[in-house]
């Protein structure tokens, strides 16, 4: 179409004439829109009446009954927490076995690679960089990250296909309304438990740009699959030991839940602060459809999720974990003044890290863990033992010994857990935020907000405990 019609005089005069007709009859833009929509809906209503015959007027009764339980005052929220708990439990316990399997497989390949390098009489440093540096980090990330993702997301999709997820938003909307944001943020938050990057993209379901931005900036306040194992390991080593026997796992679970609830509270608090400061505004209109419950297509979900997720994770591992592996290996193996770079870096961070209840090595591990949170604990162990490459302990009590002999107390453990919950988003998430917001400013903010929150929390906890002489 050849235009500018908008600067075509003949067109414009007709346009004004037509507008004039409407105005003379008192039809403003809002009224025109009303009339258009009403007219279309009336035709829809009439046609539907003619073609649809309903035998049983109560066909929705089952859905209403389910809703009366799943969104009831008494059971609504407990059922929701229980379901989420079951999803986590299946994810965490279910991931162990495939994780081990993948790790065994990938480390077998590592040995073969080593053989190959030996056979070719390759220089030692080349083997170090390629195999114990890049390949091992890659193998690590894939084996730790892939199984939980491949379990969590199908389960999450299952809840969505069943029609349950909108009910979660319905149940929690009031909390989010009080924080001046959207009920659907509850869903992107839940998704963040699986992967913060996915959670950030999920924020697309929120229409209002202001509320979407808040959801993006606060997504990182819930721990993703990459951070759960760290939290669980520390809880098990330092806190669950207090009670023996069958209550041990119950206590671990309770502490974990407390941390998650704390993350959710922080999400709401920061959302509220954001919407009173830089993202000021009123909540936008809220309309949420609660679709009928439907039988999910389990087979399709599993195939698609695993297929998609595998490629997603592998792609991410190659792009981000491989260079990280290279850097970590170089830092651990290049010596300056008799000490490797890692130690210099850790010593430099030490005084600040002490202020927030940790030590230089831990803080450094968090920084080097920027590409993927899964490698934070392995870096800590590697540095304490000066092994020069990532290693992990099969046995938690052995790990406990190493940590304690390097000065860990219960306070260190608490601060590490707090900082695990509250620190900068991982590399992939930052990159995703940049893509979604199209802005470096918001990306930097999304980096700073949780980090500063974490530093403040750890500082308060560490120094209060020290002042009171508790640690």
């Amino acid at each position, binding site marked *: *179409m*050849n*235009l500018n*019609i*908008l600067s*075509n005089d003949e*067109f414009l005069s*007709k*346009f004004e*004439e*037509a*507008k004039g*007709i*409407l105005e003379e*009859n008192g*039809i403003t*833009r809002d009224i*025109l*829109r009303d*009339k*258009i*929509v009403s*007219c*279309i809906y009336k*035709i*829809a209503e009439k*046609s539907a009446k*003619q*073609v*649809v*015959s*309903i*035998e049983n007027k109560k066909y929705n009764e089952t859905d209403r009954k389910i809703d009366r339980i799943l969104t009831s005052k008494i059971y609504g929220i407990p059922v929701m927490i229980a379901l989420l708990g079951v999803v986590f439990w299946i994810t965490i316990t279910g991931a162990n076995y495939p994780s081990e399997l993948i790790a065994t497989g990938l480390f077998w390949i590592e040995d073969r690679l080593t053989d190959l390098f030996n056979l070719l009489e390759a220089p030692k440093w080349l083997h170090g960089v390629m195999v114990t540096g890049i390949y091992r980090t890659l193998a690590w990330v894939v084996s730790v990250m892939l199984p939980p993702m491949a379990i969590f*997301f199908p389960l*999450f*999709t299952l809840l*969505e296909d069943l029609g349950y*997820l909108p009910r979660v938003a319905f149940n929690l909307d009031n909390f989010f309304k009080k924080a001046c944001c959207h009920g659907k943020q509850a*869903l*992107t938050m839940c998704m963040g438990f699986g*992967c913060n990057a*996915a959670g*950030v*993209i*999920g924020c*697309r*379901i929120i*229409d209002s740009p202001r509320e979407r931005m808040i959801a993006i900036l606060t997504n990182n306040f819930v721990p993703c699959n990459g951070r759960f194992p760290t939290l669980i390991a520390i809880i098990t080593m330092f806190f669950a030991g207090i009670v023996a026997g069958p209550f041990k796992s119950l206590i671990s679970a309770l502490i974990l839940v407390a941390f998650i609830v704390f993350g959710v509270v922080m999400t709401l608090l920061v959302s509220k602060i954001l919407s009173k400061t830089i993202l000021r505004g009123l909540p936008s209109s809220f309309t949420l*459809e609660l*679709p*009928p419950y*439907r039988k999910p*297509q389990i087979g*399709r979900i599993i195939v698609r999720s695993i*297929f*998609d*997720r595998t490629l*997603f994770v592998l792609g991410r591992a190659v792009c981000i974990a491989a260079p990280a592996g290279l850097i970590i290996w170089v830092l651990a193996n290049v010596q300056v003044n008799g000490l490797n770079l890692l130690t210099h870096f850790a010593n430099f961070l030490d005084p600040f890290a002490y202020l927030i209840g940790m030590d230089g090595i831990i803080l450094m591990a968090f920084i080097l863990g920027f590409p993927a949170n899964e490698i934070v604990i392995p870096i800590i162990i590697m540095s304490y033992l000066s092994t020069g490459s990532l290693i992990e302990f099969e046995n938690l009590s052995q790990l406990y010994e190493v940590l304690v002999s390097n000065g860990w107390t219960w306070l260190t453990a608490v601060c590490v857990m707090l900082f695990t919950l509250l620190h900068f988003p991982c590399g992939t998430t930052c990159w*995703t935020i940049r*893509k979604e917001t199209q802005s470096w400013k918001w990306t930097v903010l999304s980096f700073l907000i949780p980090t500063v929150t974490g530093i403040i929390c750890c500082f308060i906890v560490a120094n209060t405990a020290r002042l009171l002489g508790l640690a």
Partner: protein
Amino acid sequence: MGLTNNSTGIGALEKELKIERMTDDDKVIAIAGNPNVGKSTIFNSLTGLNQHTGNWPGKTVTNAQGKYKFKDRNFILVDIPGTYSLMANSVEEEVARDFICFGNPDATIVVADATLLERNLNLVLQTMEITSNIIVCVNLMDEARRKKIHIDLELLSELLGVPVIGTSARSGKGLDDLMQAVYDVTAKKIVPEPVKIEYDGVIEEAIAVLEPEVKKHLNENLNSRWVALKLLDSDESYFYPWKNI
């Protein structure tokens, strides 16, 4: 809601997915519908693994495209965002409307939920105003049957003046008929004649003044009556794309 589907796909962040016809004979089909009507099930069933996801140019709205072959022809299926209306009240609706309107699809499938027909017809009627190459797909017929809701598809087709196909995408029922209908419409074997939506006298009067003028400038694929109405009801988001044509 399409939450997990949209945010964890392989190419969720790739940008600017363009439509590429391999040959001039390839047909581009837009697939529209309300949220939760099984649109992505139909999309996935038709295209299988032969699909890409990315973003609409310049928007953080997920765009999925896939190919399928039916008889002698290749079809490129474009999954446009699930919306309740095409009034451009949100970015999704804007993207959906702009594609149906300016993306020049050879046909548009509107997927409707058999158990919620009345509300879904709103979108069907709105789409029919824009384009006449439209196939209505009444999905979830199995759910409707289970709830003892009966739908007279033939009568609906007669009332609307466009082909109406009943499907149960989860079990794959009716998809062949759907592909056949799409084939027939794009091959001009069936020429849909959507009913005209009559508005209040005054609005009709205003349209009558503007429409002939619009028609002069318009290519054949767009409905001049609808364009005239939209210009009267216009907001900036609507004026914008005109400048690119």
